[in-house]
């Protein structure tokens, strides 16, 4: 095991988008059981430092792989795709975004806003799942399409964050 392994290799997993999340979390725990600094509380300084570095790396790998969006971006990075270059999004997707944004804004003054927000969030999640399937289907064939799917995921993530913000506002935090 070395620090140059990619995140999938660290967990002994194949580089695929469709991941066995239970398996990931099981392997994550097994690795941390060996590597976590608590195991080295009475060890030498060098072992402590190594354990902290390894444990940090395993944490970073786990957080990246368990989130579909972060995992997708990471896979494109591994393939050397330039993810800072923004693809042109299909007009239909942009229209849908505008509609969803408007709908979200209208919930702010709606007396039943909180309940409707729950339904809204389910819809956002559905779109997200669709994008994940789309990414999975094209990631090995078409970099540009895969990048578009990731970019759309980022839009949906921001929308979800706005929905969370609104929920906090409605709950009067």
């Amino acid at each position, binding site marked *: 095991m070395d620090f140059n392994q990619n995140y999938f290799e660290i967990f*002994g997993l194949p580089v695929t988008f469709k991941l066995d999340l239970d398996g990931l979390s099981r392997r994550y725990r*097994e*690795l941390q059981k*060996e590597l976590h600094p*608590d195991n080295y509380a009475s060890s*030498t300084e*060098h072992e402590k430092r190594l354990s902290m570095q390894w444990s940090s790396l395993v*944490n970073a790998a786990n957080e990246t792989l368990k989130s579909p969006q972060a995992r997708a971006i990471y896979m494109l990075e591994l393939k050397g795709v330039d993810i800072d270059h923004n693809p042109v999004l299909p007009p239909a997707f942009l229209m849908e975004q505008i509609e969803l944004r408007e709908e979200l804004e209208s919930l702010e003054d709606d007396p039943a806003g909180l309940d409707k927000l729950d339904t809204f969030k389910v819809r956002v999640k559905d779109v997200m799942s669709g994008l994940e399937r789309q990414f999975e289907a094209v990631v090995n064939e078409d970099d540009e399409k895969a990048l578009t799917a990731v970019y759309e995921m980022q839009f949906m993530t921001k929308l979800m964050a706005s929905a969370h913000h609104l929920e906090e506002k409605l709950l009067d935090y």
Partner: protein
Amino acid sequence: MALLQITEPGQAIDPHLRKRAAGIDLGTTNSLIASVRAGVAETLPDQEGRHMLPSVVRYSEQGVVVGEDARVQAAEDPLNTIVSVKRLMGRGVNDVDTLGNQLPYEFSATEGGVPRIVTRSGEVTPVEVSAQIIRALVGRASETLAGDLDGVVVTVPAYFDDSQRQATKDAAQLAGINVLRLLNEPTAASIAYGLDTGAEGTIAIYDLGGGTFDISLLRLTRGVFEVLATGGDSALGGDDLDRAIAEWILQQCGHSEKLNPSQLRGLMMQARQIKESLTDKDEVDVRVDDKGLHFEGRLTRVQFNELIASLVDKSIKACRRTVRDAGVALNEIDNVVMVGGSTRVPLVIDRVHDYFGTQPLNNIDPDRVVAIGAAVQANILVGNKPDDEMLLLDVLPLSLGLETMGGLAEKVITRNTAIPTSRAQEFTTYKDGQTAMLVHVLQGERELVQDCRSLARFELKGIPPMVAGAAKILVEFRVDADGLLSVSARETSTGVEAFVEVKPSYGLTDEEIMQMLQSSFDHAQEDAEQRSLAEARVEAGRVIEALGNALDEDGEALLGESDIALLRGAIDKLGSLADGSDTRAITEGIEMLGKASEEFASLRMDVAVRKALAGRQVADIDSEYS
């Protein structure tokens, strides 16, 4: 020379070789110390059989008084009796101004920004006051366990930021104890329950202490505790319930003038007694007769519930938010654990029950459960249970970030990220020819710098002049398993580097701590040199033991004979150095041995990883065929 001891593998450690470890719950209102004895974790009482030590320190004419005696005298001598000092830990002078209305003390500000409380024994910092409490607890433990403690786990609210954690660690250091780990209080509570009941699943820990409210969601799987999310309110606690009653009494008295500190203290104490009585009784007689305050009547539980409803609701809102952060549905939460004396209040139990839809657990004393869990963890970390499988995974309670242009805070590590962790972010210069860059480290969730807590500022100097945007400055954040941060910055094209251990603005520098140690009357007789020699010897012993054990376990498998002989030789050399009295030689010897064993340490880590993966592969094969 000692005779060789032969024990069966897995047999219990000889009681004489057992290390003394303890868990400390440093609370706002009360503090406790617990230890594992004969396999059972229990809180340790003082000579009069009292387990809870009131977190009250009085600077009296005869010296420092800690605990019950100080608490009893609090009303007579409020300015010299420090209560709820935990609320001040890691806080700056500005924070104290906000809290100041509620506190009867006189403060004197210092350049460092650390608030100092003016007492008759001079000015004291919150860290020093906390160290007194820790000393009192440790003294109790040393007596009960008949010897000095080898290591201690100290608990902190999950919501504590970096400066508050650092201040807590400073206090323990000042009290002269070896801190094995800072542990989040709710996590400690779950350890106590996890081992007692063998629970698995998702657990919510509802902790309404004296001065802080914490809600944590943990997942327990096969002996692994994972913190899914933490939240809470660092300014909500049982004290606030008392205050609600005190305010009600004042209203009944028709009193509107400012109370003097001793009146206020007396009233708060009475309010607390009323709160406690209303746990079992439906109503309580209230009588006040004190200079200008006159009232006789009664408070019913129904009225009390009305007084505190908004406070309890505040805690439930924080629960809602944390459940959402954790990404779990309410019906996935199997258990709710109650921590803190105020969770005995019937309205609190009802509201928690209603929200989570499950009967909360409180069969372990909610005042002691945190200390008990900390003792269990301390016992493991000190090495008394080498075969134990428990692993504690923790998360960062508050996001860490940097100031960017326009007074905005850019998050580098978001809250609820598993720790330890490290993350690097690249920044660039904004002016042509810029040769220095200020790195301002922040903690908090808000977007504006002014709304976040400032942890540290440092400057990266010597950037070669380039056009704006050409320099690449890599800022790396590293958070250790205690949640404490260090930051480094590097210009990547030239390698110019700057590094800080984040000593938060409100913490104390190591020199300040050394000074305090020296001036502290408990250690006045001790020579500082003697002390550092003793410390170096202890450290040498620790390193020798650690490496010796490692060689016994893996030496033959991983190293050639000559390498083993080399390391054994180095160990012996350090051993003889430690017998001498040259502190510097010992410290250098420790470093040498560390260097010599680096390669071996790396090999061992590799083996550990391979073992983890191998175990996993066997398990996978099993599940495929079953």
